[in-house]
């Protein structure tokens, strides 16, 4: 309750701003539609309108502003339009008993979620392994860390098609695996960086203590570094899962735009149905929100169990 009210208030303000922005964003489109329908608009010539500022257009055609809130192809849809589209492709489908039809975002969200989870598992495993290697081996630290950073400066969209071609060349069937690889490629880095920071977070005093016990590397890891890294781990897992989702959606473009939220976004773009893009975006955001909230819950439980006030 303590957080719900502020979130809702901020959300309300954002939505109000959004609604207000729809008018100037869509006025041109509204006037074009009105003109074709034979209405009187100022200026009447589309070219002249293009050179006039939106504020002047709104001032001169106040009676057409409202039309901007119900365009078929809005530059900026209203929250209500997005909500309706989202409902049409999720809740309504589910009510009709076809939640897993190809036209349902639940189906596409599920496809995306699967790849995301695989990518997340793969990326987290890689990131953790890398972090442990970096913290325990000086050579790995000095040679790998710079390249981990460089790997993230390589645009994934450039690598994605090659990953797909190469994985088909080594005999991997289907698009699931390359999608998960792309997703893991984006996911491993935040986990790696966060875990390196976390595993190194124990102060000298805490490390010195274990030294006086002559604790083995494994013991130091289990009893000090790992517990000390827990807050960092969860923070990076939350970033990591969001990155994995983005990675999957990026990966869904060059994998043949078959299914998944990424494919919906692409098709929505190509066939000029902005509402479909916005609905898929909203679905992606909701999915990310759910995943992050889930991890957050896990974090609270774990940290409470460990006696660290979350």
């Amino acid at each position, binding site marked *: 309750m303590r957080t719900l009210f502020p979130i809702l208030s901020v959300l309300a303000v954002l939505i109000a701003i959004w609604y207000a922005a729809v008018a100037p964003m869509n006025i041109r489109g509204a006037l074009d539609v009105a003109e074709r329908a034979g209405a009187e608009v100022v200026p009447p010539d589309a070219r002249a309108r293009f050179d006039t500022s939106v504020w002047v257009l709104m001032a001169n055609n106040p009676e057409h502003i409202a039309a901007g809130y119900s365009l078929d192809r809005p530059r900026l849809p209203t929250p209500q339009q997005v909500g309706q589209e989202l409902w049409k492709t999720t809740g309504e489908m589910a009510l009709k008993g076809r939640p897993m039809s190809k036209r349902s975002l639940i189906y596409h969200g599920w496809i995306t979620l699967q790849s995301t989870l695989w990518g997340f598992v793969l990326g987290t495993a890689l990131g953790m392994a890398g972090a442990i290697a970096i913290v325990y081996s000086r050579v790995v630290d000095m040679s790998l860390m710079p390249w981990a950073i460089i790997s993230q400066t390589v645009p994934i969209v450039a690598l994605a098609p090659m990953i797909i071609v190469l994985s088909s060349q080594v005999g991997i069937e289907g698009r699931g695996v390359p999608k998960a690889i792309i997703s893991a490629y984006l996911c491993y880095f935040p986990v790696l960086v966060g875990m390196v920071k976390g595993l190194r977070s124990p102060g000298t005093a805490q490390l010195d203590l274990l030294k006086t016990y002559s604790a083995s590397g494994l013991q130091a890891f289990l009893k000090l570094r790992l517990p000390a890294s827990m807050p960092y781990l969860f923070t990076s897992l939350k970033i990591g899962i969001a990155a994995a989702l983005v990675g999957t959606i990026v990966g869904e473009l060059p994998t043949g735009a078959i299914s998944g939220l990424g494919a919906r976004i*692409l098709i929505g773009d190509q066939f000029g*149905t902005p509402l479909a893009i916005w609905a898929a975006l909203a679905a992606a955001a909701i999915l990310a929100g759910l995943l992050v909230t889930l991890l957050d819950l896990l974090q609270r439980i774990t940290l409470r169990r460990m006696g660290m006030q979350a």
Partner: protein
Amino acid sequence: ADDVTLQLKWVTQAQFAGYYVALENGYYEEADLNVTIQPGGPDIAPTQVIAGGGADVTVEWMPAALAAREKGLPLVNIAQPFKSSGMMLTCWKDAGIATPEDLANRTLGVWFFGNEFPFMSWMSQLGISTDGKGESGVEVLKQGFNVDPLLQRQADCISTMTYNEYWQVIDAGVSPDDLVTFKYEDQGVATLEDGLYVLEDRLDDPAFVDKMQRFVAASMRGWKWAEENPDEAAMIVLEYDETGAQTEEHQKRMMGEIAKLTAGSNGTLDPADFARTVATLLAGGSDPVITADPGDAAWTHDVSSVLN
């Protein structure tokens, strides 16, 4: 049954109806083939997929295929279901454009990703530079996958296909009277579009040739059925669209337009069309797509011979 993987050039749509019809109506099965159709998408270069062994045969435009051939990837045209080109430039009439000469000093949207070659040839034949606005130059934009640049007047003209993007402009409420279109066919710079390509060395294998013969024959059966039953064909395509985002209305209309492009072909490549495409591409001005005539090695009738 023999396995065949077909890589499409773009997403599942009526542009590829023939193959889906052949699959749905069991023509491939009758030819003892087990065909997998892989849709394309942005970032998928069919040429690269086939080079990587991800497909046996691919749908590609001839300019891109010949460019790949020059890059050392020996693609060979084995069949040409599309007789004519569906590409055109769609412009606002109120921008003051009536003839190709009016294009100078305008902003034009063009598809890249290997689809820019016909445009470049055309501009160089018109003597218009593509390096920026000027007396005899145009500003070229790499357009995305939609027609927004035209609707929002970020460009005066954009590339469209007769069967797809043009209708999206119309669907957005624009009257055909407000538009001017330049078909590449009419401008004499048409290049061959959707053909079937395989890697040259695989044709040495008689078994492969046999497989492709059966594949091409079954595919053409699909195409001809689609031409005769456009609405049903569109519905079949919709069946196979896994994104669930395509609309029936749009696909039926697309199928109607596609039928016009496949009409003149029984699947056999007309060497004259090939020659005309090569000539257009070689005329590409300062930065031609291909620098030398690829010669007849770039196509073969060995496979399509079964069609006659």
